[in-house]
Each structure stands twice: as structure tokens, then as C-alpha cells.
């Protein structure tokens, strides 16, 4: 069984938000829910400063802290390493949201329009709301699942497909010859905040 993981090359990422939008379009997430996100960081002192984008998503940790705190068994780790939420078992306690140091989980009480002033849902929003309620749902924890349905069709996650800079690579971390394993080995892939001990399976190639 493969152990899925991702490598994000920060030298290539220029922060265009295509991954964020691709995730939204694929998963029809409601307002304020971003399974794929983009953070911006700065370093140095003026005038020698640098700005860097950091795409963030569920790290599908080897030792997920969200799994440890889930009281109902809704959070599960599949054999392929992907961490999922079974919406039918989630009671919406939000303990997993508090437990995730990467801020990868979301919960919304109800679907609200993207548009202000109480406008009725548009035709697309009605469709998206229905899709969301079928696949994820309101009142329960939701998160990125590496586009599990696309993987089952032999396709790549939406954020990987959408990345114009080819900054994202997806594959089997257990296969030493896979592209992800090679990139991690060759460019010394790092994980975010390794001191937390979650052992994330999303690796980053640091900016230079």
C-alpha cells in the first residue's frame, strides 16, 4: 500500500493562489473554509528583506494529533496514510481543530452566501451547498483528503494539477524511486515545525 505524501518546492511557489482556488472549485468549500491555504512570511531587515509564500494544507501526519483527540472515531487514518473525517461519526466538538498545529481543519455551522447583505444563494452556491452537505457537511470537522476521489480515478489532487509553477509534487513516500522521495532526498525536504512530533507527510523544499 502506498504512503501518499506531497513535496512543495518553495523556490518555485510565487503565491498565485491557484492551488487555493482549485481546492475551492473541486471541493466546493463554503466561505471562510480553505483546505488549501497560502501564508505569507517575511525575513530580514529593510532594505535586505525577502517575502515568501507558504502553501499549507492538511499534513496527513504520520502521528496526527487530531486523531488522538477525536472522541468518536470520526477521524481515521487510512492504510494509504491519508487522514479523513467520517462525517457520519463526527459530533462537532472541534477538539481536532484545536489539536491541529497546522490549522488544517475547519467547521462551519451553516452555509452562508459568498455575497454580502443577505443576498440569496446564487445558482452555483446552491449547487455547491448541496455538494458540501453530501460530502462534508455543516457542524462537523472538515479537511483536505488529498482529493481521495480523484486518486481513486488515477488522477492527482486538484491543487497539484493547478500549480502553474509545478511547485507541488505528489506521490508515494514509501517508494524510494518515486519523484517525491527523490526530491526529498536530493534537496533535503523539510517538514513544518518538526519539533511538534506529528511527522507530517507534506515536505517543503526550502527557499534559498
Amino acid at each position, binding site marked *: 500500500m502506498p504512503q501518499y505524501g506531497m513535496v512543495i518546492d*518553495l523556490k518555485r511557489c510565487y503565491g498565485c493562489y491557484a492551488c487555493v482556488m482549485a481546492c475551492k472549485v473541486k471541493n466546493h468549500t463554503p466561505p*471562510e473554509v*480553505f483546505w488549501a*491555504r*497560502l*501564508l*505569507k*512570511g*517575511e*525575513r530580514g531587515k529593510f532594505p535586505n528583506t*525577502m517575502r*515568501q509564500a*507558504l502553501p*499549507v494544507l492538511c499534513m496527513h501526519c504520520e502521528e496526527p*494529533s487530531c486523531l*488522538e*483527540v*477525536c*472522541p*468518536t*472515531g*470520526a477521524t481515521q487514518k487510512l492504510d494509504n496514510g491519508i487522514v479523513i473525517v467520517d462525517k457520519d*461519526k*463526527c*459530533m*462537532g*466538538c*472541534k*477538539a481536532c*481543530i*484545536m*489539536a*491541529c*498545529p*497546522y*490549522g488544517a481543519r*475547519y*467547521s462551519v*455551522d451553516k452555509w452562508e452566501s459568498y455575497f454580502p447583505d443577505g443576498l440569496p444563494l446564487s445558482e452555483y452556491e446552491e449547487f455547491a451547498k448541496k455538494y458540501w452537505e453530501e460530502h462534508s457537511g*455543516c*457542524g*462537523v470537522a472538515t479537511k483536505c483528503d488529498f482529493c481521495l476521489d480523484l486518486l481513486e480515478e488515477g488522477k492527482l489532487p486538484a491543487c497539484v494539477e493547478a500549480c502553474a509553477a509545478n511547485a507541488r509534487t505528489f506521490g508515494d513516500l514509501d517508494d524510494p524511486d518515486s519523484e517525491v522521495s527523490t526530491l526529498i532526498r536530493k534537496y533535503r525536504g*523539510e517538514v*513544518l*515545525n518538526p519539533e*511538534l512530533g*506529528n511527522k507530517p507527510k507534506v515536505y*517543503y523544499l*526550502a*527557499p534559498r
Partner: protein
Amino acid sequence: MDPKVNGQLQNEWGGLIALYLFLGGVGGGAYTIAAINSFLGKSMELSTTIGLWIGFPALFIGCLFLLADLGNPGKFFLAGLKPGTSWIARGTGIISLFMVFSFIHLVLHQFTEVSKTSVGMNTIAVLGIIFAVFTIAYTGLLLSASKGIPFWRSGIVPVVFVISGLVTGHFLTIIGMVIFNEGAKTVSQFSTMALEASVVVVVEVLAILFFLNAAYKQPDSRESVERIMQKTIFIVGYFILGLGVPLVLMLILRYALNESGLNTVLAVAFIGALLGLIGGFLLRLAILVCGALPTLNMGGFQFRRIAKPKDLKPGIGLMPPK
């Protein structure tokens, strides 16, 4: 706007969870004091009776607030089917056992002729105390198990909550004693309760200072400490009005009102206890709302979740908070 990007602070657990944690502490604390006082016999009869009446209902109401906060409360029963797998599942078991023992103790104490000093009664009291203390500690363990909030992720949090639970348990019992006082003969019980409460309040002051000092030394939780120290609900509401003033009033009650009339004693006890009770809630609320997400580090960059727009000063744009 993505709250995770634009909000450094967690915004999922708020007032309802603070009430749950507070009432869990009050219920466990009031029961513990009542059960301990029951060993003192007739001299603390009123405080024992009131504490026993508070324990179970306070916790029950607290659980209702938890249910109200759940996104999918109909699935709450699933938490009881996986005991030992998480702190919420463990807490469900602990709270259930505490409710059973406190209910049995109340029934035996109030509605039967069982001797207050019998072995059976004492056994129930000891078991009740154990699960009451576990219940209060659980409210802190729930937070300290949250790896995503470095401020909460401290072994001192459950200790602070246990001490605060005992303090607020005292104060709610005192309020009950004011309401159901039995005239002049109650004054000595107020004096004893005031002394007990004063000691625990001093311990709480030391514990909270130790907690904040330890958290400030950790880079990831420093922001939370800085924020909580700027919160009016914490400094004024909790520390001054919820700890300082009640401590002074309890000491006055203990040492300066021996010769005063019953009404003065009741007034001082009520005001001190009410302020202390409100302070206990504000402590939990402040700890919750000041829970900051950790900074993510990569390649020498610090990727902070930037402050909410309302925290930004005009003209600075999206600068992170200091």
C-alpha cells in the same frame, strides 16, 4: 477572509465552552468541599448540604452548554462508545461516574437516615471526591491536550483549573449558604468557609502567576500571555475583582466580622463570593479567547497567522501584531 490566515487567535471555542469548563469546575469544587466538610460533622451541616445540592446540577447544566456548542449534538453518544481513546471520551466516563457518586451521596445525605459517619457514606464521599477532582482536572486536560494552541498545552493548566474549581466551588456554596442561611448559628460556618476560600485563593494566585510566567518563557505561547495581560476581563474582571477583592472580603469575613450582625456577614459573604464566581468564569473565557495558533517556521521565515483586521492599526496594512 480566511479566519486561519487573518486570525492569530483560535475562534472555535468561546463562551459556551467557557461556561462548560466553569460549571464543571464549580460542580466538582462544590461537591469536593461538601464531601470534605461532611467529615467535620454537624458543625458544617449547612455547607455540606448546599455543596451536595450544587455538585450534580452544576455539572449537568455545564454539560448542556457543551451539547449546545457541538455542531452535531445527536452524535454525542458516540463519545461514550470509545472510552479511553481521547480526553473527551475519558472525560465522558469520569463525569458520568462523578454524577453517579454525587447523586447517590446527595440522596443518602438528604433523603435517608443513613448515618453521616457510616463506612458506606464515607466510601461514597471518598469516591465522589476522587471523581470530582478528576472532573475538574479534566476540564484543564481537555485544553492541555490541544496541540494546536501552545498556550493551553501546559501541564499547569489542569492544576490551575483544579484550584480555581475549588475556589469557585467554595464561592457558590457560600452564595447558597447566604440564601438558605439558618440565622446566627450559620455565622461560624461562614467564618470557616471564608478561611478555606482565602487559602485556596492565595494558592490560585500563585498558580496563575506560575502558569503565565512559564507560558511567557515559551516563544509560541508568549503572544497569548501578552494578549491575556491586555484583556480587561482578565486583569480587572478576574485578577482584581475576581481574586483580589474576594480575598480581602473573605479575610474581613473571617477576622473582622466576628461581632457584626448577621446581615453584614451575609452581605460581605455574598458580594465576595459573587465576584469570585464571576472571576472564575472570566479566567476560563480569557484563557480560551487568548489561545493563539503557533507560528509556522520554514527556511528562516516565520509564517504567522496575521491578526484580525480589527486589530490592525490604520495605515499599517497587513503587518502582523508585535
